[in-house]
């Protein structure tokens, strides 16, 4: 499976899970802001990705990985992402426009940053872990 096929499959899964128009879904499309995805939709997408690609994405793994290995205290302060946390996020999510990693980002708003590419990258990483092309 080449990267284009992976993207096509990820895109098809997001279309199916959210029931949105094909034209609306591109690599940089933000799922919550642009496609009205809700938290349950993320789980739905994960379930479909697991089935389709034959992988496992343990619950909470995406959120944990977004912390770039920082402890809770290092990553957040009173529900807000610390400057160190913002750097980690930016490193872990290179697909997201840097303008969104700014002071005042609440931890609960991190999923708002997720794009189609976020899930595409997760799948590429999972496939690479398994040594699959």
């Amino acid at each position: 499976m080449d990267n284009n096929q992976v993207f096509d499959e990820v895109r098809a899964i997001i279309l199916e899970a959210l029931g949105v128009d094909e034209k609306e879904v591109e690599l940089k499309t933000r799922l919550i802001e642009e496609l009205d995805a809700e938290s349950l939709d993320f789980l739905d997408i994960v379930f479909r990705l697991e089935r389709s690609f034959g992988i496992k994405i343990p619950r909470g793994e995406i959120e944990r990985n977004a912390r770039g290995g920082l402890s809770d205290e290092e990553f957040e302060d009173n529900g807000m992402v610390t400057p160190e946390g913002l750097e980690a996020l930016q490193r872990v999510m290179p697909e997201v426009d840097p303008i969104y990693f700014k002071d005042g980002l609440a931890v609960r708003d991190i999923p708002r940053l997720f794009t189609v590419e976020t899930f595409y990258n997760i799948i590429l990483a999972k496939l690479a872990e398994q040594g699959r092309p």
Partner: protein
Amino acid sequence: MGRLAGRAVLVTGGSRGIGRSCVELAAAEGARVAFTYRANTAAAEATTAAVRATGVECLALQADGTDRSQVQAAVQAVVEAFDRIDVLINNAGIIRDQLMVAMEPDDWDAVLATNLGGTFHFTQEVAQPMMLQKAGRIINLSSAAATQGGRGQANYAASKAAIEAFTRACAVELAPKGITVNAVAPGLIETDMSREVRSLAGDRIREEIALRRFGMPEEVARVVLFLASDEATYITGQVIHVDGGLRL
């Protein structure tokens, strides 16, 4: 063609009482049926034999609803056998009646773990395949005890009231994925579970039932299967009382 033709149905605690009626009526409505039972193998075999005698596929699965790995294995077995799961009927339940002041903490825990915990575990396990299907029906068995204080039933009443709250919360969460979640609250039904109450206080309770009789398991099962059918597409988060007009 039955009202549940081709549907894959899982009933927890399906070897006896209301659960068995749900299994038999679902099969009669054309469903492929699986049910769980905890320990009574003879009762499970009798239920399976009764359904198979009608020419319908039936799967008996031994599973304790308080044990997550057993719940997971049971749901997986249903999905493997039927390739989908359309209806979950959370019926498995126990009683450990005792006045609250004398109630053993273990009896409190056991009733909450089986009735409420089991309902949660099965619901969470079926949610994933139902979400992938974008369709599903979950029907939870509550009880008149959820809303009518029953002496000696603090644990049971609390578990059933919690199931009603759980039903509403799940209905809101799962509706966007095409899954409905409802509850049925039976009154006093002629089952093994209610035998003691009926024999001790039957005459007095009968006086409090508008229809002046106890219900039969199939009278509850018919309402459960209505909620599982295409006749109930616009009902979710509701509790339907099937109690003959208890304490109206």
